[in-house]
């Protein structure tokens, strides 16, 4: 997995609440057996018309946001389906960090498996960053995972919380299957105990 340490980039504003994973990547793109190449279809039905032409007023089609690396989004981002195609598409587009007041649980976990940092901040801080993102390409937001800070273009810094284990994996780009396999002894003893206690499982 790609490491995430620091990021300084353009943030795109998407204030809509409850942006679901069907919006992020519609089902017709789930028929792939690969993880790559989904960026072009990120937000497909909001981004293109039926003929495949770009819809000019969609945020990521605007010139100043085409290179966005951060998304500042409305509450409950990533709700709905568990499809990991959603973070795959976000990452493939070039976005490495999403900031919102809350995320749906499965999407939040999926981000960390793909080198994307989801950041939860209180409404008033998200409002500041949303206003900053509205300024376009001149307003670069800085994210520092080690320090757990987000800094707006005027220097205002906000701290965020992140689970220590998730932070550790993201900072180092660790494959967590490998880490778990190091604990195979614990898994084997659990299995032996469970088989004795609950043989029907």
């Amino acid at each position, binding site marked *: 997995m790609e490491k995430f340490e620091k990021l300084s980039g353009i943030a795109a504003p998407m204030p809509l609440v409850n942006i679901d994973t069907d919006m992020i990547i519609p089902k017709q793109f789930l028929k792939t057996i690969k993880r790559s190449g989904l960026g072009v279809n990120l937000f497909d039905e909001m981004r293109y018309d039926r003929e495949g032409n770009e819809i000019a007023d969609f945020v990521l089609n605007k010139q100043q946001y085409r290179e966005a690396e951060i998304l500042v989004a409305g509450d409950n981002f990533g709700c709905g389906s568990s499809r990991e195609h959603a973070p795959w598409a976000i990452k493939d587009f070039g976005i490495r960090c999403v900031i919102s007041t809350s995320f749906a649980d*499965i999407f939040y976990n999926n981000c960390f498996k793909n080198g994307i940092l989801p950041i939860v901040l209180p409404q008033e801080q998200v409002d500041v960053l949303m206003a900053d993102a509205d300024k376009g390409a001149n307003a670069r937001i800085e994210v520092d995972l080690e320090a757990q800070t987000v800094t707006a273009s005027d220097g205002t810094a906000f701290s965020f919380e992140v689970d220590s284990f998730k932070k550790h994996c993201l900072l180092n780009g660790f494959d967590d299957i490998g880490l778990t396999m190091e604990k195979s002894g614990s*898994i084997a003893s659990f299995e032996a105990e469970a088989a004795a206690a609950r043989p029907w499982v």
Partner: protein
Amino acid sequence: MSPKTLYDKIWDAHVAHEAEDGTCLLYIDRHLVHEVTSPQAFEGLRMAGRKVHAPDKTIAVPDHNVPTTLGRDNPETMPEDSRIQVAALDTNAKEFGIHYYPVNDVRQGIVHIVGPEQGWTLPGMTVVCGDSHTATHGAFGALAHGIGTSEVEHVLATQTLIQKKSKNMKVEITGSLRPGVTAKDITLSVIGETGTAGGTGYVIEYCGQAIRELSMEGRMTVCNMAIEGGARAGLIAPDETTFEYCKGRPHAPKGAEWEAAEAWWRTLYSDDDAHWDKVITIKGEDIAPVVTWGTSPEDVLPITANVPSADDFEGGKVGAAQRSLDYMGLTPGTPLSEIEIDTVFIGSCTNGRIEDLRAAAEILKGKKIKDGLRAMVVPGSGLVRAQAEYEGLADIFKEAGFEWRLAGCSMCLAMNPDQLAEDERCASTSNRNFEGRQGYKGRTHLVSPGMAAAAAITGKLTDVREMM
């Protein structure tokens, strides 16, 4: 010993390793797999030279992509990309030696219907699947939730998940439901009350008399949509109803093992003085048959209400509500019961079980669907389909004018050919009314099976109580 919730008890019984910071390896008893979210996970195993850790605890079935029309065991009936995904599952199931129900097996169906039906899902288990509606299995008092593809690979390789514990939330439905009100109305009403993010960070336990009075089918409907309320999982404590459902299922324990299992299952309830981080209480008699008007499952109102206006909301929901009204083509103030529909879909892991088909058939018996309306029933599994045919329900549906399909996810997420056209309006027993969910620019109103049947007869959203 300190008092525990049901969630605490199941969690504690499955921690294989706990780190100092509270990060746990949670052991997984059942891993359900389908064709859409698993190919990349199996490929990951292959690339790393890893095996499936516990193939006997891993069960696969194709459901999302499969056509629901006769003759579908001919792969030519599928578009190429779907065919490749289903073929990949065939290959992976064989190569890694996991349990498998292929498309031509009568036991095939929606993964969340097949698991319980075959007795794979039992009380006190941990159950995961690369599908958010894994919450369904919580109806058995099993800790069940959806995971992403990276986690599917993690479970395949290690039979564990890296987890931190969620908080405990109790949703109590007191008293009894009124006639015409169903499990679907309970679960939608709860989401209407809490919002789609209200459960974020929690595992919900549904309890109270109205929940106790539900069948297993109804309980599965309630837990199925816990995810729509944002919860990691929904749970219902096992009781006689649960044990009776499980007994005799192909993969349920037998004889002395059953006795031992049942004895443990009877300890799976929340202690009286257990701690709850959040409690919601709703009176069963206050719940009405409901429909959704917008594009979020929290956009719920009783069928007797009117379409709201964006001004009725606050904060970020104002813009979202206006976007929903525009998308749905609705005018504020219109009675919901005057909204005309084009299509009725009965099926899905929310409402594709035998009891759901019975409820719809009860309303449709001897009646015809409205002229020009498109209506389909997609049973949740081949066995549900066979049972419905045996009971004569299939004939009622067909005589009324419904298409009688083969099992699969179908129009719930429209990955197969069953899709809404642009602006087509559907009364659907599924679980999500998101933009584009049932087809590009398709418009979805979520309802119970009885309400879907009533709408099919009148051609508009209808209060099922008027048909009873």
